[in-house]
């Protein structure tokens, strides 16, 4: 088979290279490690060496720009006849000997896997179940509950476990009928593609007696030896002090061992842990000191870790600031008082403030499109639609389901949609789709009594509106002090793409629309 030669990753910030020159022609026989081309990046020129001896097949021409990881040529290992052509003859015997040995070794080793396969063959096939790709931004999941026990017989599509990602909880159906062998333990975090369990497929009713390997770790997969995830003595001490488990860390040492450096760098547990299994779980609880000064140490949930990581990254990666205004809510409250019963009667849903705010925001977003935009690399993406993310507090943490095309929805449609999403959110049943792709967010700290706050942008969005409590305050109207229900509103925005004029005008526009709901109808 031809060996594929791809653009190697040559530096952190280098994403593409230009082919400077080919040293060998298409069809040439090349030697292993021979320099076959010069590649140029914006930082340096470097040499591309042949990873194998054989016949070169050039796929990308000189002057072409090729991204890192893309195929640039193939090398067809020379057949038995063509082999010696390019090689000095004296080397031939030398090179052949080790090859023979390799073959011999391969043969010597082959009986093992073969016999293993045979053993499996008797009981049917073994189906490995891995973490499915559940969403674009999801790299790992936490196994929340096993519904079946190790060794249980499971049916095809039967729900065997519940899995939690930072966005949603979903159920895991068995991919085959047979005997379940659990690999990932409860509360374990597993990367997408990581092994969750295996199922020994059994066709008939009688569960085949499955030989239990003495070292179950060994069979997990080729990358997982018994030593994967084993911390060195120094690494073990560092991990313990950081309150991390070995399973939280990806070992870069031989066979996945955790080196001291791995442990020193293991600050963000967000790194997907590669090992599919946790080596001997360590007691996480810290012994309580005497007296009533107990502390508790709990592993952060996947959701919590994601929230933590993203909030910090927003602070670090955006130019975020907040502008404030106040809204006289009297008009809306009057309107609501007048129509809420009729509204409920007609639509079966209460008339809340959210529909007013959502509508007002949609109109303002159309007028100030930068607030509804987002940065993507060197580009700005403007959205001609309004997908409004609504922050919902749940026992598991904050989630932000999206009301799609909110600009096109009526008041009752908005209220029903928010009610539906909020219910699902509290039950932990939101799907990934329902949480992805908002263009602007609204958060209401007022429900908890907040007077004023500076919300944090929900990336990759560029702005978020913060609602607060409604308090009767003395305000001056027509040179008279009157008592009005007032809400302070805040708009946090990314100053990189939204200027002060736009953000302040946007928020003022929202205020205008809310203080005079007639404008909402007329769009003026």
């Amino acid at each position, binding site marked *: 088979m031809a060996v594929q030669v791809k653009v190697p990753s040559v530096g952190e910030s280098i994403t593409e290279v230009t082919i400077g020159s080919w040293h060998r022609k298409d069809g040439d026989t090349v030697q292993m490690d021979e320099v076959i081309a010069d590649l140029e990046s914006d930082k340096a020129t470097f040499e591309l060496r042949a990873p194998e001896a054989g016949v070169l097949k050039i796929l990308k021409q000189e002057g072409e720009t090729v991204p890192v990881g893309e195929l640039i040529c193939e090398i067809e290992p020379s057949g038995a006849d063509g082999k010696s052509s390019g090689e000095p003859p004296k080397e031939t015997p030398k090179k052949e000997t080790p090859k023979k040995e390799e073959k011999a070794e391969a043969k010597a080793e082959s009986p093992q896997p073969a016999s293993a396969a045979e053993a499996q063959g008797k009981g049917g096939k073994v189906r490995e179940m891995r973490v499915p790709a559940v969403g674009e931004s999801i790299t790992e999941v936490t196994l929340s509950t096993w519904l079946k026990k190790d060794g249980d017989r499971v049916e095809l599509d039967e729900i065997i476990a519940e899995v939690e990602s930072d966005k949603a909880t979903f159920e895991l159906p068995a991919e085959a009928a047979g005997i379940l062998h659990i690999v990932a333990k409860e509360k374990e975090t597993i990367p997408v593609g990581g092994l969750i369990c295996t199922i020994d497929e059994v066709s008939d009713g009688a569960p085949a007696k499955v030989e239990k390997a003495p070292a179950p*770790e060994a069979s997990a997969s080729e990358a997982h030896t018994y030593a994967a995830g084993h911390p060195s003595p120094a690494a073990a*001490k560092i991990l313990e002090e950081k309150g991390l488990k070995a399973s939280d860390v990806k070992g870069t040492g031989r066979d996945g061992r955790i080196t001291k450096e791995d442990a020193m760098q293991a600050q963000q547990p967000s790194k997907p842990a590669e090992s599919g299994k946790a080596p001997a779980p360590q007691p996480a609880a810290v012994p309580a000191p*005497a007296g009533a000064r107990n502390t508790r140490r709990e592993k952060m949930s996947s959701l919590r870790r994601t929230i933590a990581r993203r909030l910090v990254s927003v602070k670090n990666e955006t130019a975020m600031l907040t502008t404030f205004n106040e809204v006289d809510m009297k008009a809306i409250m009057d309107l609501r008082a007048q129509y809420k019963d009729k509204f409920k009667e007609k639509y079966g849903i209460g008339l809340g403030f959210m529909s007013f705010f959502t509508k007002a925001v949609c109109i303002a977003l159309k007028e100030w499109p930068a607030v509804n935009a987002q940065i993507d690399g060197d580009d700005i993406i403007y959205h001609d639609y309004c997908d409004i993310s609504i922050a919902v507090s749940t026992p598991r943490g904050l989630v932000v389901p999206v009301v799609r095309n909110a600009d096109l929805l009526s008041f009752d449609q908005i209220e029903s949609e928010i009610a539906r999403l909020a219910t699902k959110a509290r039950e932990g049943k939101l799907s990934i789709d329902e949480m992805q792709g908002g263009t602007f967010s609204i958060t209401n700290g007022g429900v908890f009594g907040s007077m004023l706050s500076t919300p944090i942008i929900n990336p990759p969005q560029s702005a978020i509106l913060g609602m607060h409590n409604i308090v009767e305050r003395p305000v001056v109207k027509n040179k008279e002090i009157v008592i009005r229900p007032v809400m302070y509103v805040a708009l946090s925005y990314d100053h990189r793409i939204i200027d002060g004029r736009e953000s302040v005008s946007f928020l003022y526009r929202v205020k205008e629309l809310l203080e005079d709901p007639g404008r909402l109808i007329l769009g003026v």
Partner: protein
Amino acid sequence: MDYNVTIIGSGPGGYVAAIRCAQLGFKTALIEKYDTLGGTCLNVGCIPSKAMLDSSEHFANAKENFKAHGINVQGLKVDFAAMVARKADVVKQNVDGIAFLMKKNKVDVHHGIGSFVDKSTIKILAKDGSEKKITTEYVIIATGSKPTPLPFAPFDKKRIISSTEALELKEIPKHLIVIGGGVIGMELGSVYSRLGSKVTVVEFLDNLIPTMDGTLGKELQKVAKKMGMDIYLGHKVTSVNVKGKEVTVTAEDKQGKALELKGDYCLVSIGRQPYTEGLNLSAVGIGLDKGRIPVDEHLRTSVDNIYAIGDVIRGPMLAHKAEEEGVFVAERLAGQKPHINYLLIPGVVYTWPEVASVGYTEEQLKESGRAYKTGKFPYKALGRARASMDTDGLVKILADKNTDEILGVHIIGARAADMIAAGVTAMEFRAAAEDVARMSHAHPTYMEAVKEACLAATANRPIHI
């Protein structure tokens, strides 16, 4: 409080704990009953016995092996007084070294018997009868152990002796009877055997150095017999009687067949027991479990500010185990979270050839039902060993049958005590036998035997045999 940490006992556990505490910024006190620091290990244990072992080894070499090396020596004889004096000098250098280290690390040393007044107050009774009290936040008990006497024949320290007296004899015994074929008995037995004593070892169990892998005991027995020692295994000592300069030891085997031995000295080396006398543990409510101080996994006693390490707690009575525990406790007090892997604390016997071992023994693996494989390589097949005429011994590697992970390294042979560190390293990193087999080992060295044994364990393919 006068001190953050007070350590009672200055053996290898105590003085190492003191240094580590001082390094971590604790104001540290060290209490020692005797005039010199270093405890059993430095004064009457590891260091002096190694001094005597080396001296007697030189003599034995000169007597037995120099001729074959082409060196003729005439008028060879032992100046035993000089030998003991050199040993004393080695001890002095070492204990002075500890005193210097205490000064350097600003550890306050108090000489006297430390005892608890309450959990934060320690009374120190000096030799001259003067008393003082110090207060301390934490206490580490590191009082070590002492030789266990036979219940029916207490040490008279003249003819019925412990290891302590065996290192201070004024003459070379004519016939030394050693009761207990463990580490201490075999080490001191071989010292006097080399110096010309007739040595007879009586062991209750069926193997010498019975806590170690059986292969090692059997090999050691062969070597000891070659040296001229008489070994009686499976014999229970029933009486020890002293009459003038003569000691009579009677024993019987499992069938009840009696044995009578007459010698001029009897070394009782049946083990050591924790030493807690004078600590006044009852003042703080610490009880004992079979003589040992019970501790939790952080080596904390039942009193929250009192810790214990070394021979007074569970585990093998080894200086290096106590040292690890001293560091462990000091670091825990500083809020760090170190580990000790007790499986990987090596055991060493300083006979010649030396015996050293780490990890599981074959007996333990058999008992646990673990599938394992064995790789052995004899010193006889080693170029380095032939060059030095140290061809007794072997390396045995035990590895998991499925994963090839090294589960035990057992060595008897020249330099075994130094070589075992490589086994500890490999096992701490959970190396497979093939991993070690694929690492370059310098030639010619004794360590090549480890590589070869690993090759043998991997796929039974050693090169040089």
